[in-house]
């Protein structure tokens, strides 16, 4: 009795502490946009909507959010589909040197996300005629994210009992049917995780869109966010906090959508 009580108190205390840890930093984002003269102090806002008015009238702000959506969703689709197919094949068919190859690609992917890769990527984009195009940027971003995505998805594939596929196979399903009907739904939480991971990555990426898209009409919110500083590099907190909030909302909505629709959990329950 006492032990379970102590356990419960411990559980809720820990949860409360963690909740506070994850909530407190977010307060500023909730308050500042509604404050007419925000500073770094979290204050009770005076509930002005002037800042939103400014953003709505901003010539590129809302368009940039649409661009962000195009880039994020495009990349996420490409990453999820390609990584799922590749991870499935790699998980189920023994290819010599498979693991070493995966690790090598994963390590190389770290170099490509670094600042030093900007010149090769820029020149590559120019050479392939991918500069100033959403498609080109999506392809480049996808290339960088794929190894890690394959890596993660492969774990989920490996953990899926083969009997599902064998069963479908005995019933005459083709490999693609097996992937569509059986494997994809079973690893769906994994795919959802990858999708959200990709979206979050693309959503926050500044350097690549900035370098590869010259046309301001095509630039995503991450780039536009950087334009909201002054001539001397000072943060204009009024518009920054407000745009920051608007900039955050779509990615949160996408998360909610993906998590609601595809769930982050396994269906579970089959005793093995």
């Amino acid at each position, binding site marked *: 009795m006492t032990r379970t009580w102590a356990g419960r108190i411990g559980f809720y205390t820990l949860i409360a502490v963690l909740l506070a840890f994850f909530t407190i930093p977010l307060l500023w984002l909730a308050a500042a946009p509604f404050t007419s003269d925000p500073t770094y102090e979290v204050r009770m806002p005076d509930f002005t909507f002037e800042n939103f008015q400014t953003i709505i009238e901003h010539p590129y702000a809302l368009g940039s959010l649409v661009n962000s959506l195009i880039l994020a969703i495009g990349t996420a689709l490409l990453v999820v589909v390609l990584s799922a197919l590749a991870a499935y094949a790699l998980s189920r068919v023994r290819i010599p040197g498979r693991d070493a190859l995966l690790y090598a690609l994963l390590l190389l992917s770290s170099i490509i996300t670094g600042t030093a890769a900007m010149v090769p990527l820029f020149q590559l984009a120019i050479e392939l005629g991918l500069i100033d195009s959403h498609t080109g940027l999506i392809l480049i971003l996808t290339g960088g994210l794929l190894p890690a995505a394959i890596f993660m998805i492969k774990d989920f594939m490996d953990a899926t009992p083969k009997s599902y596929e064998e*069963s479908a196979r005995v019933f*005459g*399903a083709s490999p693609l049917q097996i992937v569509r009907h059986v494997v994809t*739904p079973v690893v769906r939480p994994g795919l959802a995780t990858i999708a959200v991971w990709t979206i979050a990555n693309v959503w926050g990426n500044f350097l690549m869109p900035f370098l590869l898209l010259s046309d301001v009409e095509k630039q995503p919110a991450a780039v536009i966010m950087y334009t909201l500083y002054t001539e001397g590099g000072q943060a204009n907190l009024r518009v920054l906090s407000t745009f920051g909030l608007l900039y955050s909302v779509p990615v949160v909505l996408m998360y909610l959508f993906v998590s609601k629709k595809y769930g982050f959990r396994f269906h579970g329950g089959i005793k093995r």
Partner: protein
Amino acid sequence: MAAIELRGLTKVYPGGVKALDSLDLTVPDGEFFALLGPSGCGKTTLLRTIAGLETATGGAVVIGGRDVTGVQPGGRDIAMVFQDYALFPHMDVSDNIAYPLRIKKVPKAARHAKAAEVGARLGLEQLMDRRPGQLSGGQQQRVALARVMATQAQAFLFDEPLSNLDARLRLEARTFLKKLQRELGVTTVFVTHDQAEALAMADRMAVMEAGHIRQIGTPAEVFQRPANTFVAAFIGSTPMNLLDAVVRGDTLEVAGCKLPVPASAEGLLTEGEKLVYGVRPEYMTYSAQPVDGSLTGGVVILENLGASHLVTLDVAGVLVQAVVPEGHEPALGEQGYAVPRGDRALVYRDGELVTA
């Protein structure tokens, strides 16, 4: 027309492990056939090779008169129930049952009607829109069976169909499965490591060891006349008494006792030969009074089997077991006399049954 025939079937894994060594086996149409053996004996590999999930290294698999050795599993016209049932966790029962028909491009309405029909036959009406995760083990098993039935395949393959059920349910399922197979009349091969299961359900069975089939026969044959000491020891809920024996004239000397040569081995033995004398505890007649031709010793262990008792006698240092019917059980420590039934006792030479 769906007999299953295996010819010289060999499976060697890439590492060089020989899982199946040139097996020949024929399962006639409509038979309920068991593959029995300890784990690692190759019985599951054999089943999977029949299904096509493993490719044979050599030999041929013939189903319904058609050589399917090089045919994909989906093209063999068979259906399989997996040990873990492999029910798709994201589909409800109805979709699971209808899945094979979906692959065959049966229209949605038709396949769900079929699923409902098969489901009803297996008592799943109330569960059709549940997910597998919400079902008990027994219910899951029935869904897996329903799915197999929906395919109307020529042959069914069951991989340890009962092993995921608890003991009580297993008995029920055994009866249910046997009844179902009888009704459907579809050639069915199932794998089990449980000899009782094989004996109870199969029309015929094969006992396997290390990639070889050690005996094929009806349950009665396998139980009564195990072809070798491996089968003898493996079959039976109480292990067979396998006792060292020496031929002394027309008797066998076993643990210091003189026993008559069993009928099956008459005239086949040589004087002074060392053999193994085998008799099942069920085929011993126990007596508290001295009897000729008995194995005699003190009662050291008494085990209650429900309607009978298993009595263990210490016969000159050799333990001998006999089944005693209810009401006749001896007391611990008293002297007992166990007489093997001459028509059921067997003699093994170098592990193989001595027989005409």
